[in-house]
């Protein structure tokens, strides 16, 4: 269940090595076990330099992909998980868990408690998921507050001490590194009662509970006879419970209005102590019927100190909030475009912002635009080959707006204009960006009165809701568009 070593590598395209090892930690006692367990198939952990080189090559992060290289490009080298075998000094180091996120490669080598030849299935190796969890934990810690680089450096410099707490011998004790950081400062508190390991100390102060529901809606709209449009809502319920006592009990109920869309695919935080079977079984992979469980969704839990995601859900609302079409046609030297967007009447017509981005890929810079909009303004980014239609805070009374125009492009120069491997020829999309506060598309809400707290003092309860667009695409209906399997099932 232990890790033999862990690395953080910043990916630096264009530099001679392609990256720098920002942090590494080895676990010699685990290595000792690896030698025994792996027997003749044992491959030692390399030093940082060779590891960096080999890992970046395997992840295709080195800049040298001009020529075909069998060891990297052969069609039979197929990776279907983020677990790799690295060529190091003529041998293959396996398994190496690694992934790239925000310019940093997170990597570790889990201990396999048996021989490596033949390779055991990943599912049978307990340290694999532990390795993933360690890397996710480090990633959460580094990016828990998205700020500038200097903060990243500060956090990187804290890592050695934190891992000494959270993973002293290579066996992960807590993936929540922030908790380990807190436990250093809370260390002096004495505990009369059994203290959960995931809660470093206790809160002192005014009791309050805040619950925020964020729904993201994504959509793929085609405006085609034979392809179905798709849309999906993904919700996240975030809580911060400032309550006194070691193990205060809280129950939060999420409710839906009568015509609300049932929540599905619910995943809960491990602090949730029990779950109704109806919550566990409501799933989007089954065909929907009217008997679907529609709440209230009760989540009894013992909160950790920090803010946490109580649960995630998805939902299939009956209509997309904004339905539209996009038509783009090549006419001699220019493109003729028509866009139509319609806000559904059930949706709250009060946006924080609403914009449609219309990018033109694999073309030159925009040289000339003629257009007509029924509402809002159009901004033209010539060098980026991008139009942004700023719709603003409200749709007009008719709820329907349109844009039409022609766009002319200059000669293509590869450096400046964006390249895209989907938008070839007529294949093109526009992407909607919008946010509506104090609103959820499913109608889901956490009623203040439905929050039960079993702790001293009556807490203040704050609730927030918002809807955000995410991956909201409307494809050009005059050309082929990438479809999902679901779209084909008419």
């Amino acid at each position: 269940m232990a890790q033999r070593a862990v690395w953080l590598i910043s990916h630096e395209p264009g530099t001679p090595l392609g990256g720098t090892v920002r942090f590494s930690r080895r676990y010699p006692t685990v290595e000792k076990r690896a030698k025994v367990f792996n027997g003749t198939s044992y491959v030692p952990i390399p030093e940082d330099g060779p590891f960096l080189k080999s890992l970046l090559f395997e992840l295709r992060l080195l800049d040298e992909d001009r020529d075909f290289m069998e060891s990297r490009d052969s069609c039979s080298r197929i990776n279907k998980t983020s677990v790799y075998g690295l060529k190091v000094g003529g041998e293959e180091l396996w398994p190496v868990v690694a992934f790239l996120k925000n310019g940093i490669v997170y990597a570790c080598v889990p201990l396999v408690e048996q021989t490596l030849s033949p390779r055991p299935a990943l599912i049978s190796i307990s340290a694999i998921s532990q390795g993933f969890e360690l890397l996710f934990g480090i990633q959460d810690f580094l990016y828990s507050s998205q700020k500038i680089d200097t903060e990243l450096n500060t956090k990187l410099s804290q890592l050695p001490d934190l891992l000494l707490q959270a993973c002293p011998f290579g066996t992960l004790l807590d993936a929540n590194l922030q908790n380990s950081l807190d436990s250093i400062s809370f260390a002096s508190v004495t505990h009369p009662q059994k203290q959960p390991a995931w809660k470093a100390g206790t809160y002192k102060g005014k009791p309050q509970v805040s619950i925020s529901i964020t729904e993201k809606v994504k959509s793929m709209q085609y405006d085609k006879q034979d392809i179905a449009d798709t849309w999906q809502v993904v919700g996240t319920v975030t809580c911060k419970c400032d309550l006194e006592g070691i193990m205060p009990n809280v129950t939060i109920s999420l409710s839906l209005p009568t015509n609300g869309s049932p929540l599905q695919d619910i995943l809960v935080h491990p602090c949730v102590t029990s779950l109704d079977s109806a919550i566990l079984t409501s799933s989007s992979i089954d065909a929907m019927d009217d008997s679907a469980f529609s709440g209230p969704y009760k989540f009894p839990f013992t909160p950790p100190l920090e803010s946490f995601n109580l649960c995630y859900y998805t939902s299939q609302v009956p209509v997309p909030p904004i339905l539209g079409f996009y038509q783009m046609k090549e006419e001699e030297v220019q493109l003729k475009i028509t866009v139509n967007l319609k806000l559904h009447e059930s949706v709250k017509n009060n946006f924080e912002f609403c914009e449609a981005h219309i990018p033109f890929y694999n073309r030159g810079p925009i040289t000339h635009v003629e257009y007509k909009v029924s509402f809002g303004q159009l901004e033209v980014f010539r060098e980026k080959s991008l139009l942004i239609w700023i719709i603003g805070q409200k749709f007009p009374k008719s709820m329907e707006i349109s844009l039409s125009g022609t766009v002319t492009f200059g000669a293509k120069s590869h450096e400046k204009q964006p390249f895209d491997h989907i938008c070839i020829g007529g294949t093109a999309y526009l992407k909607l960006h919008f946010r509506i506060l104090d609103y959820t598309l499913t109608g889901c809400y956490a009623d203040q009165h439905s929050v039960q707290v079993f702790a001293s003092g009556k807490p203040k309860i704050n609730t927030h809701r918002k809807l955000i667009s995410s991956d909201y695409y409307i494809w050009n209906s005059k050309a082929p568009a990438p479809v999902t399997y679901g779209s084909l099932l008419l």
Partner: protein
Amino acid sequence: MGLLSREAWAQRLGAFRASPSAYMAAPEGEDLGRDLLSDLRSEKLSEQTKVSMLALSLEYPAQLWPDAPAAEAAATSLLDTLVLLPPRPSALRRPLLLAATTALVTGGVLGPTSGASLRLLPLLLGLASGGDLGRGFGPSSEQRPLQATACECLRELESCKPGLLGGSLGLLRGLLGQEGPVAPVQPLSLLLALALRNTLVIQARARASLQGLLTVRASPPGGGPWNWTLAQEGEAHLQPQAPSWPAAEEECGLSALEPSPEEARELRAAVAQLLDTSYLLTPVAQAQLLWLLGWALRGLRGQPPVLFKPQLVRLLGTAQLTLLHAVLALKAAFGEALFTAQDEALLLRRLTLAAQHPALPLPAHLFYLHCLLSFPENCPLGPVGEEAAPLLLEPQLCRGLLPNLLHDPMALLARLHLLCLLCAEDEQKEEKGQAQSPCHYLQELLAGLQQRAALTGGPRALATLCFQASYLVAHCLAGHHTVLAPLTHGLAQLYRARPALAPHFVDLLDRVAPELGEPLRVVLRQEVVSRPGGDEALRWHLQMLAKVADRDAQSATLGFLQAAAAHCTDWGLQQALLRVCRALLRAGGGGGLADLLQALARQLEDPDGRDHARLYYVLLSHLSGPKLGVALGPSLAAPALTSSLVAENQGFATALMVQEAPAPIRLSVGPRRAEGPVPVLQLQVEVLEPVYSLELRFRVEGQLYAPLGAVHVPCLCPGRPARPLLLPLQPRRPAPAQLDIRALYTKSTGLTCYTHLPPLPVKFADLFLPFPKAPEGARLGFFEELWDSCLPKGTESRLWCPLGPQGLEALVSRHLEPFVVVARPPTSYHIAIRLPPDSKLLLRLEAAQADGVPVVLRTDDWAVLPLVGDYLRGLSAAV
């Protein structure tokens, strides 16, 4: 080296970390371990510096203290430093404990003879039990974190030396159950679970009982010697094991353990105790606990896994990778005993859901997808160890798991694999022909991938992805014509659009030869040869053609090459062109090729190219087909240089030279013939591989025999009976000899080989020839005449020839029959033997007794006497 400053240490540690091996190889590396230990006690260095020094020792103990004595000394020194710390809060206690533990383990010194071990273990156990350790252990504020650290250290020691804490199980249970101000739950739980698991495994292997280990609360901290018994049992057992997964069923062997009802009850209580407080553990620690307890209880009699059941619903609801993974481990360990068919279906659904949930990161999706295809089913149908869609995973459930072009490459390939599995099943059912059938969707997806790969100037990764997908489909759906035909067609179109992908095509052809090789080869060849020769992508066309050219449609290929030749202006292109010619030569080129080669030999600008063309022409006109194939085939020797010429010449050399090879036949000496004017050896042949134009050459050491002629055989095939080979011998003296044999032959591949066969003996008796038969009635006279003629030149001797149970008559008929002149069975025989070149041997065997017969012998060649003696004495044994 003296005391170093903070900066000096920072620099030193930095230099070490940059490359530990280089640093330790340099002179300054030598003292690092010693300096580190001594400077830890320096009062001038800050705690922060000391912590970073200790951090280094946690990572690189084997470099700092490479052997056991050094590790023991280091651990002792670290413990001394710990004891000497002033009794105020310090950040050093924790890392010092960790460092001492690490040094003992990695130095391999943990054991009853190590002083440091005997100090560390009671100290750790004392700290873990929260006892008062007196001065040196600082303020009470540090007690709790140190307690946790001590548990971690003990857990690590137990991991590396299973059984170490077997004697402390009762104590640990007691600590965990304590009320009031208590020890931290998580470290104790994990320590107890690990110790419990290891104890069960060791006792099961030793076929011992638990001996009350679960209840004995003895071994108080600091009191009494450490109990090493179990650890010494366990030491041999830190060996490869995967005890949780069904494949390793036999290795586990916990069924050998038969706990008494009381022990079983205690064990159940211990496990329940651990599970009941498991919600206090962090999710990753909960997962570890479940794996450990799953290991501990699996296969153990009288321990129903229902104890786990109350935890499952809670765990199934989470999105935590480790927790869901641990549930899968329990599933694999206990199967139906813990998961009913409905539970299994629910787990499968949650897994399917987790593999695509938008709130989870991609690496988690991919891991879940892997788990889905390796799902431990209650009733598995397919072969073990192969990825397959579980039976309960209906296509309907997989809808959201199918790939589309917007996916990341890894996700696309993983999902494509699932799609292929569905297509294979779908085809088995019924050809539906619906637009939304998985196969149809697969085709659309492949077409999309091909379109993207065709994008000029697009990144290579996109092309690679397209070929990986093609490979995956060809492998999973081999024989599914409805999928493979459009795939082949699409790939041909891709080549038309972007010939620069030729290396990918060559690679693909190499990998999918059995499934897709032939049709793909044909369409690609058509694609190339239908082009005008002077294309700007000529170099790719030639590379492609060198792979796909063969005997079929050669005129089109030659036409293309002729047109291309005019455009092959540089050396590289000419070589590429010649490589195609070479491929055609191997495939068996005809007259058209000869014309082309002659033309190239005149026309090419580069002299090297012309030479090559000429050489190929000469080979084509002089060598037979198979030989040509071998001459141009890949060289057996690994080319030392990447030059094509060197590799090529090695190929020729192999083909045109005689190679030494292992023996293709086995020879043995057959029955003696004893007729004719000279002795003839009859050789039996056993054929091991087909051999053509075999020439066997024989030689005899010394000059005992006249030179022997070679034996020729046109063809030998295994399985076909081979006639014996006759080898006439011309001895110069009647003496046995050893035949040295070499074989020269041609293999079925056309290579000429030579082999040194094992030598064969020619025995004395092999040289025996009979005298011409005298007429009946004159035989005795004939014999007496020979008998008399031996003396005085020769010699007479008497021997005792032992007889076996079979008696004289059988002995004579078996060995001497052809040479008998006068016979009076069963007691008397007169025997005359001709020994080439011109000697004789006469024997009188008379008045045989039960156990032997006296032999009077005469010969005109006294030199054969010892041979005759040996021969006669060997006869009875030779029966």
